[in-house]
């Protein structure tokens, strides 16, 4: 516990009337990765949204260096990057404009140059002047992932980051993840497709699904 940067204790998540998971625990140290696995509706997305403070836990706490993150939510938001199911891409903005905006919104100095560098690292430099409406699903996903590389942040939260990616793009993502972890960063990712995260701990969310009268699966979280 003492060495862990980011941890959860007794975390429970309530969506509507349904307890998605309860008593969830994990601990991550610098450079470590956590892979979330479990059937649909077991709460992978909900857990990532909880970690991003987009949801409030029903019970339990998320801890950053032993301190509950709810005590200083702004500081926690500043140290995380979240990539969700929605790509947040505007049809009329070019890739470079989108990324420059996100970099500027996070207060990065010289956002234009950072955007170019991020585009290059995910192999999007040829698309940099293309408006969002002409991007394929995989290209949109890559553009969304490029946000991770704009500004360094210790915690990356990735909700099925490989959806729609081809093998080459997955390789670039894996390289980015490895680089991030080598620098002491942490990764929490949910995925249904193979994603190379060497040495990642695996969290089976169905272990924490509460036993009710009937065990329900199949709903998307």
């Amino acid at each position, binding site marked *: 516990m003492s060495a862990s940067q980011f941890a959860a204790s007794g975390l429970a998540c309530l969506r509507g009337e349904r307890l998605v998971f309860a008593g969830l625990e994990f601990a991550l140290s610098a450079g470590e990765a956590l892979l979330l696995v479990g059937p649909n509706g077991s709460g992978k997305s909900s857990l990532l949204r909880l970690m*991003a*403070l*987009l*949801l*409030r836990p029903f019970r339990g706490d998320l801890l950053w260096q032993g301190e509950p993150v709810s005590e200083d939510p*702004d500081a926690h*938001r*500043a140290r*995380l990057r*979240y990539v*969700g*199911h*929605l*790509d*947040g*891409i*505007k049809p*009329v*903005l070019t890739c470079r*404009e989108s990324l420059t*905006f*996100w970099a*500027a*919104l*996070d*207060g990065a100095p010289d956002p234009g140059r950072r955007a170019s560098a991020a585009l290059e690292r995910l192999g999007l430099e040829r698309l940099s002047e293309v408006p969002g409406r002409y991007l394929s699903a995989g290209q949109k996903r890559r553009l969304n992932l490029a*946000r991770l590389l704009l500004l360094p942040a210790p915690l990356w939260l990735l909700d099925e980051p490989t959806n729609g990616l081809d093998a080459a793009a997955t390789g670039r993502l894996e390289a980015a993840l490895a680089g991030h972890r080598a620098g002491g960063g942490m990764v929490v990712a949910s995925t249904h497709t193979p994603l190379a995260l060497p040495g990642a701990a695996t969290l089976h969310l169905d272990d924490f699904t509460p036993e009710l009268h009937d065990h329900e699966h199949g709903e998307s979280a």
Partner: protein
Amino acid sequence: MTRFWHLVTRDLRLALRQGSDATIAVMFFVLCVVLFPFGVGPEPNILARIAAGVIWVAALLASLLSLERLFQTDHEDGSLELMALSGLPLELVVLAKTVAHWLVTGLPLLVAAPLLAVLLNMDRGGFGALLLTLALGTPALSLIGGIGAALTLGARRGGVLISLLILPLYIPVLIFGAGAIDAAITGLSPRPHLLILAALLAGALPLAPVASAAALRQALE
């Protein structure tokens, strides 16, 4: 502060490239006012008498028309989530989006209003008051309306719901807006009305973004 202006310029760029939102509001405003002479007949005296009220009611409806989309597109494509996670407080995100929204939909109303006043044979003495009231009143409408837009985010038939929630709150702005113009036309000082309008704007400016941000947090869960 630069982050704030980055968000304003991004929204302006989006609005100018998409075009429709800005023109729809002002076209609606013009058409709405132009309908009145057909309905009540072309008698100059009657039209001059009702001009202030007609222009103000039309401006209010035009502002309401475009409000539904204030947060909707960003909510649907996930951008709003990312903005909530960015370093900019959600209250300022709301304020920046409202400023951009007003520049795109409110400012054209000010340009069109004198033409409509001529069309309705409004007394020349009321022109200055008309512009001043719209300059003070329409930003207040955008700010108050933003609360409705945030509250109805994700609701089906949100547009109708916004009208029901927000139109009653628009009544003070309408009363003092039209009242100032009538006072100026009858030779009284519009100053008290204008001061109350300015007070409404001064109150809405800090309070409405707080209320909207609270509603947005609810919508993001």
